[in-house]
């Protein structure tokens, strides 16, 4: 990781500066300690500085577990680099721990010899007991393998805030910014973006604004004036394609993509949803943008959310519901109704750990089978997935493109890691975005509710239009007229037609791309949020001379047309998934290929090294066998 360990003179003094390609930092503390905010600020600052960034927020399901407890620890990991980054890093180079519980739950991820900054004021006997520490780790030698910096953050922060009018608990709330200031100094981050943010956020509360600014500066200058740290670190800006950038999280990107699609179609966007972690931020984001003719409807339950979406689609809106796995379970019957009535709706599933309530704030990819098969009868829908936080924007537009072109429900799978993770996003020019073309029958058009075009789509005639009055519903339809029909041959035909319609989507989607050689010993095939880890692991193995390539599926039903051809050009196929091999079963069945499954169910993303070592194992096995 160290590209040029040439010490440089710092601006002041003779502090050596070590230049690195990328650094991973994690802030951790109580869920009330503002760790998510500190991490987000450093992410934005690093992005504005010109680095590539990738983040992994990790917060507990409880809003405020008891202060100081192990259950209440909240963390935010970010990686910033002078090179393209696709993952937030397997391990952290620097850990900031605000209390004993945070230290205890996170220390295992710090690299040996890594920078460990602790708030030593929080290591009281009471806090040690809450974290179930028999001895004080700061004194018992257990941290000898790290560069430990004991900073009395509480005391120093109180001191920094003393002339602001804030005292006691209000002042203590700034300690995250004190720690952040110190880390900014250590990694040569500019303070201006965060100072600007403080000004905008707390402009109306001058005391709070001043205290936060003083805390940030206090931490920064503490690093500068004490000679505690043996060196500083430099991560140069990355070489990034020209353009205007911002950081974007997956949920923000999903919301903006849905909005952009409706904007392109010249339609009202109807978002019917029931609050659920980790999807609620999509609702929050869209509720802010009513000026774009966005109607957000917070329904009484998941079923009302999806049925309102079905109704809104019938009435001509671009209609979408967002939820997570437990919500999709409740929506299943209504999604089936949209299959039968062939209405264009989008269902966003921000997947989390299951089954049941499972791990609400953790990530998983185990709702794939639910998306593909979780309804009664032969009930095909289009299933697509996003690969990165920014990709959620493109796939949200694509979801509506397919829904409207084929008159079908589309399920867009993202997950907790994509939803809360952020990356720099080159802001697109609205004129360059894909167009969503809408066709409603016009007066004089010949019309039957279930007549079909060349894509097998039925016409979208909407209430309010004279001459196209018609009735639809969940009972089987007669092909063409759409009348209720129990005829055996008609049912057989309709079941096959609905399936054929979904299959036909394949002719409108891009081919599966291979990264690396088009044939070889091993293809690593993924889908969804494993993209960054797979690509990084495969590139590392390619650099070591292994004949391995990667490919990533964004479309799962239907699969890209060339999927079988791609797979057959490799001796073996490895599929990492955050489930017990759900897509593996489908790929094996469809292409009769003995895929190797790599699975992980820990509520957290794969580490690059886990995929790398599996690749190495398979390729060396291949050689010896």
């Amino acid at each position, binding site marked *: 990781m160290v590209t040029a360990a040439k010490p440089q003179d710092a601006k002041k003094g003779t502090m050596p500066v070590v230049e690195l390609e990328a650094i991973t930092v994690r802030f951790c503390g109580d869920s009330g300690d503002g760790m998510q905010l500190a991490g987000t600020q450093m992410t934005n600052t690093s992005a504005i500085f010109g680095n590539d960034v990738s983040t992994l927020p990790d917060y507990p399901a409880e809003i405020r577990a008891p202060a100081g407890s192990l259950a209440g620890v909240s963390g935010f990991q970010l990686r910033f680099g002078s090179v393209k980054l696709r993952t937030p890093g397997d391990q952290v180079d620097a850990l900031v721990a605000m209390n004993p519980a945070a230290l205890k739950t996170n220390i295992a991820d710090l690299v040996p010899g890594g920078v460990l900054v602790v708030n030593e004021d929080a290591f009281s006997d009471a806090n040690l007991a809450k974290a179930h520490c028999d001895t004080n780790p700061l004194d018992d030698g257990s941290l000898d393998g790290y560069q430990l910096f004991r900073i009395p953050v509480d005391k120093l922060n109180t001191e920094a805030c003393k002339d602001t009018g804030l005292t006691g608990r209000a002042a203590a709330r700034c300690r995250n910014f004190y720690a952040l200031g110190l880390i900014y100094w250590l990694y040569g981050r500019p303070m201006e*973006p965060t100072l600007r943010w403080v000004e905008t956020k707390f402009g109306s509360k001058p005391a709070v604004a001043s205290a936060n600014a003083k805390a940030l500066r206090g931490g920064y200058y503490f690093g500068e004036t004490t000679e505690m740290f043996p060196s500083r670190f430099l991560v140069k800006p990355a070489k990034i394609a020209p353009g205007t*950038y911002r*950081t974007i999280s997956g949920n923000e990107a999903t919301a903006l993509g849905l909005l952009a699609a409706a904007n392109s179609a010249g339609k009202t966007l109807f978002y019917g949803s029931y609050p659920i972690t980790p999807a609620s931020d999509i609702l929050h984001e869209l509720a802010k943008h009513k000026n774009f*003719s966005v*109607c957000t*409807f917070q329904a009484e339950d998941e079923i*009302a959310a999806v*049925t309102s979406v079905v109704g809104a689609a019938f009435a001509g809106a671009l209609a979408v519901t967002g939820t997570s796995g437990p919500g999709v379970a409740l929506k299943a019957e209504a999604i089936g109704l949209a299959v039968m009535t062939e209405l264009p709706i989008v269902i966003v599933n921000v997947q989390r750990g299951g089954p049941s309530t499972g791990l609400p704030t953790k990530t998983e990819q185990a709702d794939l089978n639910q998306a593909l098969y979780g309804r009664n009868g032969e009930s095909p829908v289009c299933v697509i997935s996003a690969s990165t936080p920014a990709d959620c924007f493109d796939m949200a537009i694509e979801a509506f493109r397919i829904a409207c072109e084929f008159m079908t429900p589309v399920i867009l799978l993202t997950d907790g890691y994509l939803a809360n993770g952020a990356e720099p996003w080159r802001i697109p020019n609205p004129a360059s975005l894909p167009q969503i073309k809408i066709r409603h029958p016009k007066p004089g058009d010949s019309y039957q509710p279930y007549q079909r075009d060349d894509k097998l789509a039925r016409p979208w005639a909407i209430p309010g239009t004279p001459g196209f*009055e018609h009735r639809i519903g969940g009972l089987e339809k007669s092909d063409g007229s759409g009348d209720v029909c129990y005829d055996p041959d008609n049912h057989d035909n309709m079941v096959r037609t609905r399936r054929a319609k979904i299959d036909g989507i394949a002719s409108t989607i891009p081919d599966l791309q291979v990264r690396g050689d088009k044939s070889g010993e091993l293809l690593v095939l993924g889908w969804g949020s494993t993209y960054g880890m797979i690509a990084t692991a495969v590139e590392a193995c390619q650099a070591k001379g292994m004949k391995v390539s990667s490919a990533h599926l964004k479309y799962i039903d239907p699969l890209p047309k060339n999927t079988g051809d791609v797979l057959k050009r490799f001796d073996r196929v490895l599929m990492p998934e955050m489930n017990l091999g759900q897509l593996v079963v489908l790929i094996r069945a469809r292409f009769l290929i003995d895929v190797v499954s790599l699975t992980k169910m820990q509520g957290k993303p794969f580490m690059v090294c886990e995929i790398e070592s599996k690749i190495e194992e398979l390729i060396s096995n291949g050689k010896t066998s």
Partner: protein
Amino acid sequence: MSGDSATVQLTAKDYASDQEIRWCPGCGDYAILAQVKKALVGLGAERHNTVFVSGIGCSSRFPYYMNTYGFHSIHGRALGVATGVKIANPDLHVWVVTGDGDALSIGGNHLLHTIRRNVDITVLLFNNRIYGLTKGQYSPTSPLGKKTKSTPQGSVDFPLHPLSVAIGAEATFVARTIDVNVKHLEYVLERAAAHRGTSFVEIYQNCNIFNDRAFEYATSKDQKHDTTLQLEHNRPLVFGKDRDKGIRLNGMTPEVVALGDGITEDDLLFHDERSAEPSLAYLLSRMHHPDFPEPIGVFRCVERSSYENLLWDQVKTAASTDAPDLGTLLQKGDSWVVD
């Protein structure tokens, strides 16, 4: 599909679709269908701006028989679908046809929330106190002791009273009528359709196959004057063949009194459908046969902004104060330029 011009005055026949009606002969649904069509004529409803949404059950086949837009959805969820339709296009006249099982059992939650939001939808609840389509199980409105296929020893399930539920959720329009009372039915339907907000209408409907004569007490010529009471706004609660009985309030408790002998109409409870406070309407909804005559007519009719109006006001205000520009929105927050 035929087209028609919106300005032509339609007749009841024009609202009928070409579908063969599949209710059992003698079912109360036929009379309701006929009166709904008449009410549409009275309202001058445009077919293309009228949408009938239903759930599942005998009554929910209703949309297929109307030559308007229609959606036969899934069990209990008509109100969800209808809410989406109405928000997406507030210019549409949205009707929901549902039953006691559909609206009060599987779909109970949606009923409460649609009513409290006051979405401008006209809800017709066909109450036959039985599950018809699944061939005769007791429903949430079946009385205690009701013997059905699923309750051979009699039901031990305490029933729900639809109007009490609607008033509890502060419905802005609440009414009750009876399938065979065609004039009254038409009147109530027109009132309900004209109301802005959720209109909730309970219609006593005879299921002659599985629960025949459930409402005979309220419909038979010789009993109905004593067992029902026609509500009139600002009028005293008087009933009986000779209009010689009334309802008087004794504290908070209603009681039946005979007029005469010093008791005049002025002593009786006067009906006020416009009362902002729903307690009086609730009290009326608690009057059940055989202890009381059951009120029919409009229990409550008050003004309150509908959900979709409030929502669209926000949308329009937002658009006029902050002109939508996608380019600006996408750049929101900290952005930076890479050359």
